């Protein structure tokens, strides 16, 4: 279970900290990789930019993706993920403040696995993190990683 980790794509440091806190509280995952914007997330996933030396065969078990991001927004990130062999089947949960119908439709059509609206109330937020972590990290059977590069 140690090799499982979450990629959290979130530009708001408060929300990052609250999310991390919720994961810590519920002891679901040991490692959370944080990307502060869309570009950073894609660099991490595909081993580019400042993550150029990363082994891109190792991918997160779950991606939590905010929509409103600097540089490259969440939808764009999602499209790249779905268009690349290495990340095509990664579970992506959109975690956003928006409840706009348009965003939901767009999110699912870009290939999101789930869409969760961040509640203001921390207990609710924490509970949401616990449930989705439990489901995607423990209950859900992902495709096996292809292992490290030869």
């Amino acid at each position: 279970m140690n090799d499982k980790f979450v990629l959290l794509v979130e530009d708001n440091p408060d929300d990052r900290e609250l999310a991390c806190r919720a994961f810590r509280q519920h002891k679901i995952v040991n490692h959370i990789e944080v990307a502060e914007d869309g570009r950073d997330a894609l660099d991490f996933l595909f081993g580019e930019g400042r993550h150029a030396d990363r082994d891109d065969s190792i991918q997160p078990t779950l991606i939590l993706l905010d929509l409103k991001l600097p540089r490259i927004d969440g939808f764009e990130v999602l499209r790249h993920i779905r268009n690349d062999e290495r990340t095509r089947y990664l579970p992506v949960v959109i975690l956003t403040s928006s409840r706009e119908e348009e965003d939901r439709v767009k999110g699912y059509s870009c290939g999101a696995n789930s869409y969760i609206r961040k509640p203001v109330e921390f207990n609710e937020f924490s509970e949401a993190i616990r449930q989705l972590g439990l489901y995607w990290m423990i209950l859900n059977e992902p495709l096996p990683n292809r292992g490290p590069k030869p």
Partner: protein
Amino acid sequence: MSENEENPILAFQHRFTAICAGLWCAVAVLVFIENAGPAAGKTPETLFGLGLLATGLAFLGWWSARSFKQLLIRQQNTQYTQARLAAIVDSSKDAILSKDLNGFIQTWNAGAQQLYGYTAEEIVGQKISTLVPPHMKDEIPNILERLARGEMIGEYQTKRITKSGEIVPVSLCISPVRDPHGNIVAASTVARDMRAYQAALDKITESETHLRTLMSNVIGMVYRGTADADRTMSYVSRGSLELLAISSEDLMNNRKGSYGHLVHADDRGALQDEIADAIQNERPYRAEYRVNCGPDQWKWVREQGRCISTPKTEEHILEGLIVDVTDQKNFEEKIRTLNLRLETDVEERTRELETANAELEAFCYSVSHDLRSPLRGLHGFSQALLEDYPDRLDDRGVDYLNRIRTASMKMGELIDALLELSRMSRQEMHRKELNLTGMVKDRIRLLREMDPDRLMDIHVQEGMQAYGDPELIAVVLANLLDNAWKFTSKLDRPSIRCECNDTDEGHVFYIRDNGAGFDMAYADKLFTAFQRLHKTSEFPGTGVGLTTVQRIIHRHGGEIWVEAEQNAGCTFYFTLRNKGAKDE
């Protein structure tokens, strides 16, 4: 043929008969003498001669008697004719008189007496100049001279003076009279009284003058002219000068160019077509077009008129009126320009409104994202403090942190309510027939499930139908029923009724509860956003729900109002436009 004259054929017959009879007698005498010699006796030859003579004499006698009778008849005829002529002359209304070549009046009929006032006794033998007004005396010698030459003077218009001194217009016919040898010996005059004719003529002239005065006062140009492209005018009123800067004299008969050429080249075709069609269908024509009224000067005119000749006539004559409508045209043009500008303005405003709407949407998007995030921070980290550092906080510190958490929660709800209001206002409507009874019952079922302990007396009228957007109307019902549920929460026997009244304006739906109600003095604040009539501690709420309800009802073209009493419940009424009714 005069009866006095000898008919040459008749005369020849008479002569021929007389000669034959004479010859017959001569032959008879010769035969008698031949046989009456010494040896004469009563021989058969003598007897034959005597017979011949007797026959000849008998024939001569018969012929003479016949001729004499004919003469008598002819004489009687002549007398009759003369009498008849005299009667005609006497009974004539015209004055008939005769005079000799020296100008002395010889005969005088009753008509003359009637016209001039003199009796025959008074005037016969007097000079004809008695009848001529003093200033016209010199025309007599001229007339007499012409008569002497054998000339006949007809329809001579002049004036004569009567016995009473009145000068009257007369028309004279004067003919020379000849003796049997053909010498001119006198003259006969027929004079007709022209006073009535002159009066009629004066009247016509007067009314024509009136008409012309009238025409010249008509605003515009009255005309009569041909229908061809030249539009040659036989009459044009004085209005042409003001309208076209051409005098009527110059325009008539194309003296200085035809009217047709003044018409704008681009308008000529349509004008001719209209006139041709009007003539064909025997209807009045009417056209508006431009005419030239000086160098580079154009006026808009309206022409209307009618063809006064029948459609089959070769040349069509038109009569009508042409008026200046330039001002009117200019006004119309101005109105058109203004309308066009109005349309442009409306389009521009619509674009601005669309931009504003787009901005509003962008704003709502950021509200939902950006305003909620800090709230989550406030709430989350207050909670973290409470959880992670309980030993370092006293009761007051805990209370403050809880207040921060409650306030941020409250603000989150407000933002959500505002977003809902905005969404309900913007969302596209898809209206259809709704089973309102079913929708009300669905919502109440949900309320019962969420609050199963409440004993609520509920009555929902069966068969209520409405026409509206299902999602939006569901929001209306949810808000109103949730309110009713909420404001009856402190009652022992709460009740909610949902019914419908049929009025002239259509269905009026109402939802009535027996809950907290409110003072009607504040009713106008009820539908304003963030206005609340109850303390949050008593009945929680955002103050946006009824604003949303009102906006949805208005979008459906309906009305909403409320009746309430403090602590005695309230009733919300609303209407929805029927299918087919016009939108807001």
